[in-house]
């Protein structure tokens, strides 16, 4: 067990602070800026992608360990995320439009 590498506290705290900053940026944007809804949504989605990267790099050790596991789990994650997000949007949009 002793040869196991532990990430430094600094590493964890950096990740924690970054993730909080991104969260509060989205909140501030939604509540206190005069931007249009479309622009707000776009910026929030960009922030979400950065949030994902922060989580992957600082907490989920995407840079370490066996490549093949990383690739498999990452592609499965992308698959589920796309199904959930794109599926929901598809459903909700078509549901609003179908008049029969």
């Amino acid at each position: 067990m002793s040869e196991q590498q532990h990430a430094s506290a600094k590493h964890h705290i950096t990740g924690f602070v970054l993730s909080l900053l991104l969260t509060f940026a989205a909140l501030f944007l939604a509540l206190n800026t005069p931007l249009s809804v479309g622009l707000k949504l776009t910026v929030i989605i960009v922030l979400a992608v950065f949030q994902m990267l922060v989580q992957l790099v600082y907490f989920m050790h995407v840079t370490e360990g066996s490549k093949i596991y990383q690739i498999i789990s990452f592609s499965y994650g992308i698959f589920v995320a796309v199904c959930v997000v794109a599926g929901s949007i598809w459903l909700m949009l078509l549901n609003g439009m179908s008049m029969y």
Partner: protein
Amino acid sequence: MGLFNFKMPEHFIIMNNPLIIGAWISIILVSVGIVFFVTKYKKWGYLWREWFTTVDHKKIGVMYILAALLMLFRGGFDAILMRTQLALPDLKVLDAQHYNEIFTTHGTVMILFMAMPFIIGLMNVAVPLQIGARDVAFPVLNAASFWLFFVGAMIFNISFVVGGSPDAGWTNYVPLAGSDLTPGVGINYYLWGLQIAGIGTLATGVNFFVTILKMRAPGMTLLRMPMFTWSTLITSIIIIFAFPVLTVTLAMLTFDRLFGAHFFTIDAGGMPMMWANLFWIWGHPEVYIVILPAFGIFSDVISTFARKRLFGYNAMVISMVAISGLSFIVWVHHFFTMGNGPWINSVFSITTMAIAIPTGVKVFNWLFTMYKGRIETPAPMLWSLAFIPNFLIGGVTGVMLASAPADYQYHNSYFLVSHFHYVLIGGTVFGCLAGMYYWWPKIFDFKINERISKWAFWLFVVGFNLCFVPMYLVGLQGMPRRVYTYGEHMGWTTWNFVETIGAYLMGVGFMLIVWAIIYSILHEKRDRSGDPWNGRTLEWAISSPPPHYNFSRMPSRVTSADPFWDAKKRGETMFDENEPLKPIHMPNNDGMPIVLSGFMFIAGFGFVFEWLLIGFIGLLGVIGSMIWRSFKDYDADHYVQVDEIERDQAELKAALEGRS
């Protein structure tokens, strides 16, 4: 809504019904009795040291299974009440509101607080032993998972006596479950009970994923793992990806109800259908979370009692991987009738039907495993044999339901109710019982009595079919689900009466299972040698019950998927006895998980009643517990010394010789 607002609901203590007064009396008597006897026999210290603070996966598994059996009793009692109300037309056993509450708690309790802990309990008991590990990867997190589940279950279960039960169905659809149409605390109980238990389950998923990938014995490649371990691995992956959706969805509805947000409201841009959408994005993978481990159990049990290698090992694995992928692209079949349009319904019809392919592959593999086998039928095998035809009925009706145009007919009728009971009882419950019977003589040093168990089995299975075959028929005649009564002129009386008889038989079957356990604790023959079934996999190579460190030496001869069977064939054991014993690195017991979960209870209770101050105090306690734990991380483990291992071995040897 302020921080210091402590408004009381209209009825804080529920006492408006003789049934509930009876429940109060029994709750108080049982609690007082437990406290009295534990104090009288001075067992508090024992309970705290050996159970409340334990990080041993076997003990945690036992607690999970015990809790699951309790919840099976509670959910079963709800079912009996419903069947009593519906036995004849126009009965007045339950009123409409009480019936709504009971079908809601029946569904939620059975899925979240019975099936899940039963499955997770069996994983805890068996998986580390099957892969040759000494505990799970994160033992303290594992204890936290259990206690969070337990607190979630308790919060949900006190609802019917304190403040009022949820009554919007286990799917909790908005707008009915929104604060406009259902004010009060019932739905909050649902949200917080599930939220807290769900966090525990998510942690379990991570835990077993890492355990299986990182802690296998030397020689155990992925394709040599027992099928139950494989199913646990796949299930863990589904948990990791599905449960966050539940967490977020519950949090969104909580924000709607407590803080006036508009995620799911009808006005102000909310999307009520989004609840159904998100609920089933979690909910459909959830049904695979409870069925795949059962498939794993059946695979292990059937190959053990057919005395044959599992037929089509690789096909089994590929099928499960396929199911895990498909599980995320079928969720819309739960609401075909919400007006999605033909495009969407067609796509999800096809993906749903595709699931029948890997499942069918598995069914054929079980049949071919038994083909030309020397089949024995002790209790675990009986449940596995009953599973195949019963699950098949559930599966075939599932394919019928998958066809979207036909679903407009079946939707919301008793046909659907019967379908999911055939897969959940015929699959999950039979699997859990098979697993319990199978691994019981591993966790303890005795089997569950065969004679009583066979009676229980036949009563339960016959009762099950008596109860649910008529539901298909009465469903096709148009009886909708969730109605609290029906008129004589509908012509549903005979079938409903038969269903009720079946439900009572299942109740008797359950009581006999409990009686068999009690009888066996008192009278069944003890055997510590550890291989009562002539098993095939690693867990049977060690004594029963195993020492707390499981393996005194690491198994070193894993050369196939049935390593213990092959070793027995060669006249070997799984261990290299000449290798000197080494000190074993083990985790320390820890009180943090139960304290953290206690704070979680306070938080949950506070937020249920919308007493924000109490809720936030509870959450502070939760965070404080985690911070406290992070500072004492440095004395989290100890070594079991060689002389203790030798003492255990000598004691086991004496026990085995005394027997023969």
